[in-house]
């Protein structure tokens, strides 16, 4: 029996993998999955977790390297041939076009060890500044805002279970009832107190948790979360509900924020957000009453991708933090601000060097001290480390353009489905001289590659992940990978050797982690006191280790940091910085040709681009195809019946998917999940306009036209 965690989202539900039983064999799963007691999932798993072992036995699992031949098709190749080819082409491209002609694209699903090794590989072996990752699509705005205001970006700066003690929880743009269902157990306390406030343009399953007196659903117009927050801030200031002592002692800039919201009275916000002014007031009062200063048991403000995947995502999260600070929440019991991390290792993946501007330990790559520390661990000259690169969307935009990257290595990401404006992304990838994809399944992106390298899946490898609450947890191997499959640590080791770097890329995850610990030591995300052995021992003893965990001092181990901010904020003056922000609205604007909003999101049964979950029959049966959710009044106006094909067109392109008519939508908004490729791919429609600070694209709002789809008739005789 192997105690590990689910392969999918950042909740990282604990599970046990055992020998395949009859049921497992029936569904072609090599191991049997059961839920395991853990503070986050409390033994629960959603359907994705229960069925996760089936991906291990996927019939089209990649088990041999593939190389595109002269015939334009992918053909099996030996590892040596494939790696020689990749190394040779990389060398050739860098010799001809310079080091910067090679770029790396990582993923938030990679273990800490792989993410760390990938960042090191880019800086030390390839010596390119151009590395970024798909976390730029999900966590960058929350990260930018938290770093600026609070001095640190740890998704939840407190254990998830602390939510249970909160009297009120404000959820902005998160559908966690579908994206991480077992987490909703921790909302029971707030719901019992009538304190769950959900801001979402859809009456999502999460919004439904606020029904029947459990709280409030604010069904805001897409792209207006920031205006909702500004109105809530206005109310707590105007009605004297703020924690003045906390603001005076622990923050700077409160007066600027107070002034900045003077013009956001609820009736004005109602016009912008579509949320009745009195609902905004009520929501603000529910939160304020739960704040410790007003005698409440605690209040938590949480943001998700709905609020963050926006050209004003950083500003929106900043406003959420301002609200939490105004009520004196961060650092108080059962209170605070948090971002709900999305991908499995979305937290750890953003700490150890996959980001364009970052070195391990959440260090800044343009900080000379950080460069010196990391270079010393890596045994290289700090001056040889490249500087900051560019964020993901810009990186992809440059691929195959004059002066841009001519080779791209992709790890743990299905870009042509998950990136915004993905038809343009496909063109960019096709314009490359060399595309190398490491994957365990023939994803849409792998199928575009010149070389595909088959790698291990979660149950076949050791490593660590850092969950949404900043807890470092162990991923453990339950079975051997199929013959022909190698770990990405092996791939990086072998490529490094072929490119002339024969040391520094160990293949043992525990050894990689020890180096990561040293590299991160003294940084913001300090793993200095951790090792696989310590994590195993702590788990066995029922102890959780949340970073920062600095190295042991005088023989005394650091106990980890479950809760941040109790005594101050890791900023130069120890105070949180309140930054005034204003609402400008989404980059796409409605006009007569595109008079409706499109919002994109997820369904319970699928994870990210769907490359894994679409291969699980039970999940595919439950959610077999892309769809467009629309309100009955809109469907009626457009003459569209439930189940009929619908054509959705934005300035980027057109998608076709079946109509799901449901009163949960706003009549001015349609919703599409983005888990599919092909003509129903939602990201054909999304814009690649990005947040000016975080570089995060605006997945969540697009202006679209919607109409019934009339398939082109085949020409007679054709």
């Amino acid at each position, binding site marked *: 029996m192997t105690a590990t965690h689910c392969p999918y989202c950042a909740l990282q539900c604990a599970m046990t993998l055992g020998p395949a039983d009859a049921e497992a064999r029936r569904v072609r799963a090599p191991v049997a999955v059961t839920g395991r007691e853990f503070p986050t999932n409390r033994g629960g798993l959603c359907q994705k977790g229960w069925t996760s072992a089936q991906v291990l036995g996927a019939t089209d699992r990649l088990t041999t390297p593939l190389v595109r031949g002269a015939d334009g098709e992918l053909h099996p190749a030996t590892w040596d041939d494939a790696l020689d080819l990749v190394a040779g082409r990389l060398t050739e491209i860098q010799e001809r076009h310079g080091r910067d002609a090679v770029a790396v694209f990582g993923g938030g699903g990679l273990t800490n060890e792989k993410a760390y090794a990938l960042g090191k590989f880019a800086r030390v072996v390839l010596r390119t500044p151009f590395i970024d990752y798909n976390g730029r699509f999900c966590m960058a705005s929350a990260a930018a805002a938290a770093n600026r205001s609070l001095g640190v970006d740890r998704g939840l700066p407190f254990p998830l279970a602390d939510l249970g003690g909160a009297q009120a929880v404000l959820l902005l743009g998160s559908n966690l009832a579908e994206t991480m269902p077992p987490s909703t157990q921790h909302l029971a306390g707030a719901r019992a107190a009538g304190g769950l406030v959900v801001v979402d343009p859809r009456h999502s399953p999460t919004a439904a948790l606020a029904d029947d007196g459990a709280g409030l659903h604010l069904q805001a117009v897409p792209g207006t979360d920031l205006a909702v927050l500004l109105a809530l801030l206005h109310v707590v200031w105007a009605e004297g509900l703020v924690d003045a002592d906390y603001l005076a002692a622990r923050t700077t800039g409160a007066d600027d924020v107070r002034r900045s919201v003077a013009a956001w009275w609820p009736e004005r916000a109602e016009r912008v957000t579509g949320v009745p002014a009195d609902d905004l007031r009520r929501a603000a009062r529910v939160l304020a009453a739960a704040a410790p200063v007003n005698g409440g048991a605690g209040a938590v403000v949480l943001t998700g991708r709905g609020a963050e995947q926006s050209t004003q995502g950083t500003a929106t999260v900043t406003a959420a933090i301002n609200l939490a600070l105004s009520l004196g929440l961060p650092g108080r019991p059962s209170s605070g601000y948090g971002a709900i991390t999305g991908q499995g290792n979305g937290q750890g993946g953003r700490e150890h060097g996959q980001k364009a501007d970052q070195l391990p330990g959440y260090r800044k790559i343009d900080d000379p001290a950080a460069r010196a520390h990391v270079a010393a661990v890596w045994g290289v000259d700090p001056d040889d480390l490249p500087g900051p690169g560019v964020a993901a969307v810009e990186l992809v935009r440059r691929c195959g353009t004059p002066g841009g990257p001519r080779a791209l290595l992709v790890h743990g990401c299905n870009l042509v489905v998950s990136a915004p404006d993905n038809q343009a992304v496909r063109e960019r990838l096709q314009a490359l001289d060399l595309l190398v994809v490491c994957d365990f399944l023939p994803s849409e992106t792998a199928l575009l590659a010149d070389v595909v390298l088959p790698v291990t899946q979660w149950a076949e490898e050791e490593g660590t992940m850092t969950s949404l609450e900043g807890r470092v947890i162990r991923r453990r191997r339950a079975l051997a990978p199929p013959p022909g499959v190698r770990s990405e640590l092996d791939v990086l080791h072998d490529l490094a050797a072929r490119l002339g770097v024969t040391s520094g890329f160990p293949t043992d995850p525990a050894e990689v982690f020890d180096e990561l610990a040293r590299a991160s030591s003294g940084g913001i995300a300090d793993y200095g006191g951790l090792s696989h052995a310590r994590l195993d021992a702590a788990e066995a003893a029922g102890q959780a280790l949340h970073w920062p965990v600095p190295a042991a001092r005088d023989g005394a181990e650091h106990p980890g940091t479950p809760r941040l901010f109790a005594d101050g904020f890791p900023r130069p003056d120890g105070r949180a910085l309140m930054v005034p922000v204003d609402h400008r609205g989404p980059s796409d604007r409605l006009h007569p040709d595109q008079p409706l909003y499109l919002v994109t999101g997820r369904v319970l049964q699928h994870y990210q681009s769907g490359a894994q979950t679409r291969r699980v029959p039970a999940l595919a049966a439950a959610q077999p195809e892309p769809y467009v959710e629309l309100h009955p009044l809109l469907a009626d106006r457009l003459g569209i019946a439930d189940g009929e094909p619908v054509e959705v067109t934005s*300035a980027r392109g057109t998608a076709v998917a079946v109509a799901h008519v449901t009163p949960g939508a706003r009549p001015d908004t349609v919703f599409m999940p983005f888990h599919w490729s092909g003509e129903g791919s939602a990201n054909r429609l999304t814009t690649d306009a990005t947040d*000016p600070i975080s570089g995060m694209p605006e997945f969540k709002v697009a202006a679209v036209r919607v109409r019934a789809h009339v398939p082109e008739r085949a020409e007679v005789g054709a």
Partner: protein
Amino acid sequence: MRPARVVVVGHGMVGARFVEELVERVAGTPAGARAVEVTVLGAEEYEPYNRVLLSEVVAGKVDVASLTLPRRDVAGVRVLPGVAAYAVDRERRVVLADDGSSHAYDHLVLATGARARVPALAGLAPGGPLPAGVHALRTLDDAREIVAATVNARRAVVLGGGVLGLEAACGLARRGLRVTVVHGGPHAMDRQLDADAGHVVGRGLTALGVDVRADAAAEGVVLDGGRAGGLRLGDADDGVVPAELVVLTAGTEPETALARAAGLAVGRGVLVDRTCTTADPRVHAIGDCAEPPEGGTGLVAQGWDQARRLATRLAAELTERGAAPGGGTGAIPGAGRAPDEPPDATGTDDVVRLKAHGLDVVAMGVCGSRRDVGRPVRSVRLSDPDGGRHVEVVVADGVLVGATCVGDARVAADLTAAYTRRTPVPADPAQLLLRRVAGAASAAAEPSPTLMPDRATVCRCNGVTKGDIVACFEHGAREVEDVARATRATTGCGGCTEAVCGIVDWLRRSTPAGADASADAVGTGSRDGEIALDVQNRTGGVQSAV
């Protein structure tokens, strides 16, 4: 090259917003923030504040400190509070101020606002100070004085039953005063509401303890030892409305003296074209002091829109290449609309919404007596005076062009969103009159195991329907744990545990004791009168389940 000089006269909501927008746009251009130098002359000593909320101050609902608007302490902006402009020399392009200073400009922006109109009434000296107990409601001082006066006053009369008058009246009633609104028109808010809607509003006011005297001609303020004692009405029958506090909310008059003296054309306000520019291309007017071709609405939204448009235009003109365009593929989104977007002169800024506790009134576009839009419209209304509700929608070319909504805040919010964004309206506009039915996304919303259809999802986390649980039961599962093991219902978030227990209980209740636990189901019949189930036991005998 010396920076372009922009002088702004007036530091209220619109003047301050203009400065903010201009600074932001100029900073975003290649020329950078130093390309423009802004001087702001503000006659009031106060920092700019949110005038819209003064009635909320009267109502005691907001903290006065929360009205203060952002300061612009940035390079290139000089704010001179308490310095009033008294003349403009357009020949020399200089503004002269009352402190003896003079300010040269390349562009002059008048944002002098409006002042409260003091009606010609006996007891009020024209142009002179108001007697004790008589107050306008235009400035922060006015609001503070009214609040102070409520301490000793028991009765108040509000002269003018427009939006501000009603807000003040409701606010004073909230403070426990007996309030009478004296209004010259046929009913309250007659600029926005027709008679039927006005009637519903009148009933709402009565319910809040506010008495309305419509079609009333105020004749004079009754003074009692120099203090207000009431308001005398022209109609002999009405006589005097006694009140210790008289609030004047009889409209506003644009502050145009400076423009007039400078020889600029003035109608009701300073006459400007669609770009907010006077006949002098270097002089502009925005906000309440201006009179654009479509007319001034007196709403701050219009002034802010003008501020944004003028700032965009001047930023582009005064810097080399102009403001970066907003939106578009890959572009960092600019602030607000792109400069080339046409000015918003089509009327979506004219949403009027009453801010009064317990009385929801919203009117927009085609409403009240404003009916002529020059194209065919369709109007549908819901009249529910006894329910305190009146909703009217006006639709043209598939979009909402006007609406009136009394007594339903939720419908009002939806109408406002549809009106301001011109989103498609339902095929039958009557659908707009009622609150949308909310979606039932959770199994918890299902009524009972009996009425729940088989296809209803019970466990969302694991996609388990009621039918799956019934089938599982029929395959022998008798306890919730058995069902959980087989279907994984309840093993995600646990939120459906109660529902699954309910279904299993109901299945057990409706299965006869004789039926073998391992019976195979062969079909469904009627159970509890709804779903039927026949159970065939191991020996082949068939029993009715009910």
